[in-house]
């Protein structure tokens, strides 16, 4: 049953009972009052919101007195969930020690810790899923879902998670190792004032995108910016281009097809856009440069994560606030659009001594009430009910939220997983990122760059 044409396909259900909806509304209304008094939404007390968790048939106090360590990246999820943790502690009696690091530090330190079979952290944000599962660093969660003392399936309402999020949970063996904690998809964002000043409209095909980007480029403003740094960062948006051209990086049979005609055409377009209409210095652009330049109105269009919407809509940060139009990735020929998508996930360390407590935390963090609270702070959670909430729509922007949902619906999780969940995903993405960079800077043509990437990937895959 679908309540909105934009929700992801398959399995969307009316997310909340009337009673729950009223409770949530009360929380949000209370939060609104509190935030209007310059207090954050997270100022909600346990007395106000606690019954939304206690109503579950879960023995929340079963692990009382334990302390778990959460390792997290500096990320909007961490910012949104940390202020809510006192509510979890009050609910369960479990203390959570949140240890946050920059993504670079995090990805450098945690593999060494986990590789040494350290029992800490108990819960962590998973950055390279294929590596983590292959190395045995993640606990199988299926048993916890099935444990009636620690879980309540009807309260949990798994169907409220986006289908792509449910797909992310599972590895190729069908086992759930991961808990999705965010949802984002690849969207176009366009400065409507700049489009209007040139009498242009939002592009709906790749050819139109090229024409529009070139027409918008001037001495002061670039037509478009997308990630192009060779460190692998560019692979996510460039991957969406390949999928939308009908190609793949690693196909569903596990074959390296990065130099297929479809993939080459996609990267020719991606690199060509940046080459012809991108800003000077596109070679070193990561997502942060794309976002900052767009908010400073130094670029007219971008194609990146839907999560940018929260910052773009913030007039304190963004000059483009209030006149940004969102759209899905343009169509390439007759191929269906397949924008890229991503769910940050968290999992339980397989060597943790506090697995049950860690499970309670994960379950609480992605439960409907928690997602409702964190989404009102602008966090794009993996739950449809939170996306439908007024608090989230207000913070994120309705058009941005609708577009992001449409893109999530159109994304192909299996194609994404074939590459990004691959045990040698980092090696594959490294070669791909170098190719994208070389095409974007004009150092190589798309065919040669993708052939070189294919050869390197073949060598890495053995």
């Amino acid at each position: 049953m679908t309540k909105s044409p934009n929700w992801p396909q398959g399995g969307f259900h009316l997310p909340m009972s009337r009673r729950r909806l009223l409770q949530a509304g009360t929380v949000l209304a209370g939060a609104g009052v509190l935030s209007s008094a310059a207090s954050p939404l997270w100022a909600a007390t346990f007395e106000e919101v606690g019954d939304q968790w206690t109503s579950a048939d879960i023995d929340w106090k079963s692990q009382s007195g334990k302390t778990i360590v959460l390792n997290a990246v500096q990320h909007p999820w961490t910012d949104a969930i940390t202020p809510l943790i006192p509510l979890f502690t009050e609910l369960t009696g479990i203390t959570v020690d949140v240890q946050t690091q920059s993504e670079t530090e995090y990805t450098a330190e945690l593999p060494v810790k986990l590789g040494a079979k350290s029992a800490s952290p108990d819960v962590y944000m998973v950055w390279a899923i294929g590596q983590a599962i292959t190395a045995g660093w993640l606990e199988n969660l299926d048993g916890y879902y099935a444990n009636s003392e620690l879980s309540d399936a009807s309260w949990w309402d798994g169907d409220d998670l986006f289908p792509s999020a449910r797909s992310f949970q599972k590895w190729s063996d069908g086992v759930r190792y991961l808990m999705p904690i965010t949802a984002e998809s690849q969207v176009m964002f366009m400065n409507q004032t700049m489009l209007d000043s040139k009498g242009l409209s939002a592009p709906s095909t790749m050819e139109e995108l090229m024409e529009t980007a070139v027409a918008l480029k001037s001495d002061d403003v670039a037509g478009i910016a997308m990630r192009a740094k060779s460190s692998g960062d560019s692979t996510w948006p460039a991957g969406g281009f390949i999928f939308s051209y009908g190609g793949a990086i690693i196909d569903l049979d596990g074959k390296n097809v990065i130099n297929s005609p479809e993939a080459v055409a996609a990267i020719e377009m991606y690199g060509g856009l940046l080459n012809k209409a991108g800003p000077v210095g596109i070679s070193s652009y990561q997502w942060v440069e794309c976002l900052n330049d767009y908010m400073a109105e130094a670029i007219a269009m971008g194609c990146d994560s839907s999560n940018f919407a929260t910052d773009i809509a913030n007039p304190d940060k963004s000059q483009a606030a209030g006149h940004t139009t969102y759209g899905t990735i343009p169509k390439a020929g007759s191929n269906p659009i397949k924008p890229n998508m991503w769910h940050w996930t968290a999992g339980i360390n397989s060597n943790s001594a506090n697995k049950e407590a860690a499970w309670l935390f994960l379950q609480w963090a992605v439960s409907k009430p928690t997602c409702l609270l964190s989404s009102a702070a602008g966090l794009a959670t993996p739950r449809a009910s939170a996306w439908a909430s007024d608090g989230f729509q207000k913070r994120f922007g309705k058009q941005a939220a609708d577009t992001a949902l449409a893109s999530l619906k159109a994304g192909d999780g299996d194609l994404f997983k074939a590459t990004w969940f691959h045990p040698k995903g980092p090696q594959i993405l490294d070669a791909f990122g170098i190719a994208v960079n070389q095409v974007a800077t004009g150092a190589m043509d798309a065919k040669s760059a993708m052939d070189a990437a294919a050869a390197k990937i073949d060598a890495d895959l053995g």
Partner: protein
Amino acid sequence: MISPAARDRRRFVLLMLAPATVLLIGLTLVPFIVSVLFSLSNFSLITPDDFAFSWFENYGKMFDSPEFWNALRITVIFTIAAVAVELVLGVGIAALLHFETRAVPFLRLVYLLPLAITPVAAVFTFRIMLNPSLGIFNYMLKQVGLPPQDWLGTPGMALATLVVVDAWQWTPFIMLIAAGGLAAMDEEPLEAAQMDGAGPITSFFHHSLPMLFPYLAVAVVFRSIDAFKTFDIIFVLTGGGPGIATRTLNLLAYKQGIEFLSMGYAAALAIVMLIITIIASQAFLRRINLFRPKAAL
């Protein structure tokens, strides 16, 4: 027969040396031996249970890899360019600041500041300043009517920019050592040369610079070893790009070890870096006869 006093003294010496020895063994020798063993194995954090010695397979793979030779070439170019720039600027600034005026103490402090700043923080600031659209460097170019530059966008420009940033940070180190050398220098021959009519430039090149040589040699060895394993500047500014134009050996080792979790291969890279450093520095020190007694020269 050892006297009790000598025995006590020996015991005392051993006791005093013990902490440093334990630390040296624990923090340097053991990790080094473990690294050597890893480099001879197929050790991967993804499949730690499949650990097996593959002996020189990692080294063979490395020497067959064009990526390794490219990284070595870039590392050597970066090291030579950065140290050369730092040497010229450091000695020049030290020489200028040697003549005490009222402004010199203040200038000395200002020139030393880059050394005191946390490298990563400084490099992030450079990243913002080098931003082609919003950075201060291109803004200044525009103000004087010059076109904006893609500081990190082409292989040559990216490498040159990295050298400049490294020089900004480390020139004060050379300056400090050169200034120390100048301050310790015997002034009498200099005064004699000046009395014979030598100007300041002639005096500097024919008297001060040769006398500074041992100090600068030490500085060059220190800086070369450090520049050879530079990581933070390159990682933050270019990530090894564009393409792989600035992917140095250290960055390659990081990729292999931290991103790909191929610890055996990364350890082999690190060992090769260590061997290159030892051979190059020993060859340099022998070539300049730094440690030979002056009487023997």
